[in-house]
């Protein structure tokens, strides 16, 4: 194939939740569709597919990223982490996941994976964030059920639990 001939697909290699996947993907395929449709990781949700709602947030090389704003081919060589990777293999929840439940930081649960991934990235970089820092980190995540207060309290409670250990 000559360089001038456009290709509409490409082979990529990505590490997702510790496992390496080599796949041929359409050049136009969004990363979120690659995760949900090709890898069956449907914990990452699509709320808008226009970058507004944050339901599709995952970690790309540790950074919180809206996976509807990235093409799958752009993730070639990257290390991805989705909500499915938070709890341990035997189902032990992270302090953040537990805190979301105990503080009633979720109702329908649709935004929750994105909230958890944004907050996880925050706590990795800033283990004891202020309320303002939590709000800033979650400003790209929209929730229609719980009104944010409980989500912020849950993130701070998880931070305190981890730092107390």
């Amino acid at each position, binding site marked *: 194939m000559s360089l001038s001939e456009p290709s509409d697909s490409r082979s990529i290699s990505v590490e997702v939740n510790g496992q390496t996947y080599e796949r041929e993907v*359409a050049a*136009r*395929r969004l990363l979120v*569709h690659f995760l*949900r*449709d090709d890898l069956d*990781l*449907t*914990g*990452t*949700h*699509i709320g808008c597919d226009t970058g507004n709602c944050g339901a599709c947030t995952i970690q790309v090389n540790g950074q919180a990223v809206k996976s509807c704003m990235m093409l799958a081919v752009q993730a070639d060589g990257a290390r991805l982490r*989705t*909500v*499915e990777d*938070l*709890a341990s293999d*035997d*189902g*032990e*929840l992270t302090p953040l*996941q*537990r805190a*979301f*439940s*105990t503080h009633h930081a*979720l109702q329908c*649960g*649709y935004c*929750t*994976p994105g909230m*958890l991934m944004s907050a996880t990235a925050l706590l990795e970089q800033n283990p004891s964030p202020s309320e303002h820092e939590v709000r800033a980190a979650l400003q790209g995540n929209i929730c229609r059920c719980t009104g944010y207060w409980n989500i912020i309290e849950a993130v701070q409670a998880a931070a305190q639990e981890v730092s107390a250990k």
Partner: protein
Amino acid sequence: VSSVAPERTEKGTFVGESIPRKEDGRLVQGQGVFVDDMKRHNMGYIHFVRSPYAHARILSVDVGAALEAPGVLGTLTGDEVAILTEPFFQIAPPPGGQLKDYALAVGRARFVGDPVAAVVATTRELARDAAELVEVDYEPLPVSVDIMKALEAGAPLVHPEIETRASPATPTRR
């Protein structure tokens, strides 16, 4: 799947107790299985054609080219939805309860992103491609983006069949 809720050892009355939710364990692990998470053999994919206007009259919707596009299984317009379905049940008391609201915009788009037509195809990408071939003729209408001004007499109405958007309980501007 672990449960967030501890086992209940005593039979409580629920009154005055904090009752842990049973569904949290799966929801915080991305195992909610929402409708969009389900896959079925031979299932089609839908893509919506959405209004670029906050308020517009829908003069015509032409799905002819979309229907001819590769992989397309069918299309749906607001006018068809109005024939095929009953309006959504309205909870509000009159006059709000009198409005007719459907799954697709019928005759009028009322917000940016209001779904005007739908295309179903064999893949997500083919549905999206075909949706771009749907021709919608809009006549833009006046909008109000200030909630207090929207309450004033003569402000553009979202549902003209309901003459005001102020409910009897709406405080008037002082």
